[in-house]
């Protein structure tokens, strides 16, 4: 399978703190990649580089052969429309209704009639199991519903690559499981590649074709869920089994 995304030797420091220290990673078309790592370890920063929301200090993010890191804010826009992103807290526009939130990316992209937009909104809400919620405002939705609506908005324009930033954080296990199933279902149905950032190993095993562990600013280990569980490396085992040591409390 050809690679849809390649990250080459990515470096980023924030406030003189090195966060990414030479990340190399690739994602092939249709693949579900889960990036795991400790909180504050740079997973979300990596995801924001892929979307072009942050610029690296050095290194490249190549999406479908285009070096996203070399483009300025406005030149990135057409390429960003081919990538969807689910933000940690949904990031729904709180002044717009659910329907308007979902229609937003379609209206921005242009070329859709109002009837087609309305049909696509209805379909997207059906897919995330929230039919009939069009007129509600984001403030009227529960945490899980917000995540689902945000997910529907992210996929409504059928992106080729979906990025998920901690999709199950703050949700109860049952809602989290339903989001995990939804991510896999959407990926299959819309033929998307998925990159999911999480520290929730239950989600990681459920979603991943391949798991990459980000540790000290680099990809420390890559493998299938089975391989990572069988790996005896202490850094991998500590994270996978959730074992802390006294010095780990201070991060």
């Amino acid at each position, binding site marked *: 399978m050809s690679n849809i995304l390649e990250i080459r030797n990515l470096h980023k420091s924030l406030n003189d703190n090195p966060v990414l220290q030479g990340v190399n990673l690739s994602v092939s078309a249709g693949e579900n990649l889960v990036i795991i790592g400790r909180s504050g370890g740079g997973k979300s920063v990596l995801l924001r580089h892929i*979307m072009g929301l942050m610029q690296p200090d050095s290194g490249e993010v190549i999406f479908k052969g285009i070096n996203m890191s070399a483009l300025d*804010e406005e030149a990135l826009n057409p390429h960003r429309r081919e990538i969807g992103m689910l933000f940690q807290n949904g990031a729904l526009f*709180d002044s717009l209704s659910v329907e308007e939130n979902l229609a937003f*990316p379609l209206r921005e992209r242009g070329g859709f009639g109002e009837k087609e937009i309305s049909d696509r909104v209805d379909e997207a809400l059906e897919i995330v199991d929230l039919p009939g919620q069009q007129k509600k405002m984001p403030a009227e939705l529960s945490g899980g519903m917000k995540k689902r609506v945000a997910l529907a908005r992210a996929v409504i324009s059928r992106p080729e690559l979906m990025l998920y930033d901690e999709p199950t954080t703050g949700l109860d296990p049952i809602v989290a499981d339903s989001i995990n199933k939804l991510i896999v279902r959407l990926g299959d149905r819309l033929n998307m590649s998925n990159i999911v950032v999480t520290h929730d190993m239950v989600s990681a095993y459920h979603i991943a074709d391949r798991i990459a562990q980000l540790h000290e600013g680099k990809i420390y280990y890559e493998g299938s869920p089975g391989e990572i569980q069988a790996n005896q490396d202490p850094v991998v085992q500590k994270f996978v089994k959730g074992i802390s040591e006294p010095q780990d409390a201070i991060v």
Partner: protein
Amino acid sequence: MTEAVENVFAAIGRWLIGGIRSAGAITLLFLNILRCMVKYPIRWRLFLQQMYFIGVKSQVVVLTTGAFVGAVFAAQIHFQFIKFGMQSAVGATVSVAMCRELGPVFCCLLLAGRVGAAMAAEISSMKNTEQIDALRAMGVYPVEYLGVPRFLAMLVSTPVLTGLVLIVGIACGYLVAVPILGVDSAYYWDNTIKYTAVSDVLIGLTKGFLFSMIIAVISCYKGFNPELGTAGVGRTTTEAVVISSLAILISDFFFTFILNSLFLGGA
């Protein structure tokens, strides 16, 4: 002692450098908004929403202020002028002062408080809740989507509101001076019309137009560069209002000289 002095100078230096840096960033945002106005089609729906919020919803507060400023100024001028038997000049004084100074300044200070605060609070909340990143992720340039409609709506609404403030202020000045304080109505209007030139009205409207740019750009700048967290949104909003108000009052001094030479040849 020496260290304390050094600290004071260091603090002043930091404050100055910060101020210069912010002024540069605000100027760049202003130029960026102008560029976006040319490059992208106008978002009429957002523009009209902002027009409604700024132009229509601000009327009560702005006109009430204009009415009482005109009324109080007429009374104060009358109390002084009566000592010299110059009551008939109250109308002209109120009118010229409202047009050239009081109308645009009071109107725009009120707008800085009401509209500037709302702009800074809304945009900074969007920034803090990743909504601006969501816009960017969907291929929308935030300055074009959020900045341009607000800037344009301010530019159109403010001179209209300033014009209304002038009318209401002068009318309320008349109501205080003539029926309440007993100034002769004929002399009042005669002097008002005689000494109020079209250029006085133009100076007021031009000031309103220029102040509207200041409010919009500073408030958007603070919104796009907020402090983090809920308390940060509060501080950002307060700073937007304070800086806009100070900028209005300071720039008013310079605009007064520039516009006087432009419209009145320095008179």
